[in-house]
């Protein structure tokens, strides 16, 4: 079974601070990590490999420093990595073509796994885009995946319903955070991973034509959050009394 896991390096959104004068998020110097659901995707790949054998390749379009994060994924259990630095002007369309182009260059694949969405941009369009470009079936929001000899059966979580879909290979699956609990690599695995290769491919090597973005980012605006921040501490009975008075005053107790 040849499995490709698409993993994105993202800024750790929990660490973003807002500039108090411009109200814009400060994006420089924020710690980077692998997007949460991409670790779920890898965990699922490892489980499939444990049962059926095969090879797991991590594919990342990202800055050269993403290599450090990719090493964590090799330590978890992936076999090798492919890293492609994006061109200066990139949008969803450009990144999807690079990912799909790289997958075609890798050549043989049965299952491609992605996160349902990245935690920074959270658009959730990469998986369906890649499947569309490769013209293969897609199963999104999978909360459970069972791989058999020549097909996969997965459960799509639609909130009030679950849709159980089966597909032959190759297939692209996007996974939810609930599908599994990603493992933490052992020290042994971390040491052993240093011998696993990460190939760096130039963007020009994976797509035939130059890619032109379809979207232009005009601005990244802050979100004003003006709240009263009246916090009662100390005596609980008094605090409760004051809170109820305030709620009555602002008219929400009717």
């Amino acid at each position, binding site marked *: 079974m040849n499995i490709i896991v698409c993993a994105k390096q993202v800024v750790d959104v929990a660490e973003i601070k807002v500039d108090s004068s411009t109200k814009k998020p400060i994006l420089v110097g924020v710690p980077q990590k692998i997007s949460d659901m991409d670790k779920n995707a890898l965990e699922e790949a490892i489980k499939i490999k444990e049962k059926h054998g095969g090879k797991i390749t991590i594919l990342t379009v990202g800055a050269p420093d993403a290599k450090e994060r990719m090493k964590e994924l090799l330590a978890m259990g992936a076999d090798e990595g492919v890293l492609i630095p994006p061109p200066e002007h990139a949008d969803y369309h450009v990144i999807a073509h690079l990912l799909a182009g790289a997958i075609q260059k890798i050549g043989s694949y049965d299952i491609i796994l992605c996160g349902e969405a990245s935690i920074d941009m959270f658009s959730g369009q990469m*998986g369906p885009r890649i499947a*569309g470009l490769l013209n293969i079936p897609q199963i999104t929001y999978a909360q459970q995946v069972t791989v058999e000899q020549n097909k996969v059966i997965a459960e799509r979580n639609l909130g009030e319903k679950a849709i159980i879909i089966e597909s032959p290979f190759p297939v692209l699956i996007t996974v939810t955070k609930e599908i599994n609990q990603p493992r933490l690599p052992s020290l042994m695995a971390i040491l052993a991973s240093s011998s696993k290769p990460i190939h760096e491919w130039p963007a020009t090597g994976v797509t035939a034509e130059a890619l032109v973005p379809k979207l232009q980012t005009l601005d990244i605006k802050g979100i004003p959050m003006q709240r009263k*921040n009246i*916090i009662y501490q100390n005596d609980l009975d008094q605090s409760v009394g004051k*809170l109820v008075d305030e709620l009555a005053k602002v008219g929400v107790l009717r």
Partner: protein
Amino acid sequence: MVLVYSDEKKLTLELLHKASELAKELHKKVIAVAVGHDEHATEYLEHGADLVVVAETSQHQFKAEEYTSILEHIIKEHSIEIVLIGSNKNGKELAGRLAAKLDAGCVMDCTKLYLHDKKLTTERIVYSGNAIAVEQFTSHPQIVTIPSKVFDPLPKNPHQKGEIIKKKFDSEHSPSKIQRVQEMKSEGVNVEDAVIIVSCGRGFKKKEDIKLVSELADVLKGRTVGCSRPIAADLKWLSEDHWIGLSGHKVKPKLYVACGISGQIQHIAGMRDSGVIVAINKDPEALIFKSADYGIVGDLYEILPKLTSAIKEKMG
């Protein structure tokens, strides 16, 4: 032309409002697409569509591959420039695949949509609720998905004239198939329409204790209980229809009470538009207090019974 599609009727009507506005500014027409059946076609005309295309197909249940190929046909045939798709999970997987097939730009979960310098411009929340990205299309066709409740439907106009065309499509046949559909556990709550919500998080020690929250919700006459992700997704103490946040439901009640919730950015993303926000947390440093109008620092097990009886008394 501006095209509108969703597998939910309500969302289609909401999108038709925005589509009519854009079409007017651009001197274009509005097409609504219905796949499989024509039962809502007249209503779509009455709410702003100039034309309804009813796609007749053998694929009755939504499937991304087949539905993408139907929309692709219609978009090419009618030279569609703007495509508005309802932003539920099906809509998003459709929009992404369609964007790839058409080599088009696509903006997901757009909360504002307008023309700026005559170009279609969108706003969407990024960095888990820390910022809004303003993105502008530089080419056609342009695909945008819009969540429910961003726009209201236009009032019904029974005199609006329009055309309904039925057309057969030999859509692409995907090798995947739906085996079956399973109802998931649900308690039938609708947090998105709730006026008052009391929510619980991991500050609760066991499932039974959630009654402290429902008792407060009851006296507030809100009767709606919400929760953070771990309560629904990991502990499964409540069904997913209670789940609020970035990956759950987005709510805007008049009053939101967060009990034992730390206030991580992904939770805030779902409730930041609430009228008044109250937080109860034993940790004075908890992030939730930064997003709250009022807060009480202390043990929720002591505070909630006191708060419930004080409110009961106040409301008489």
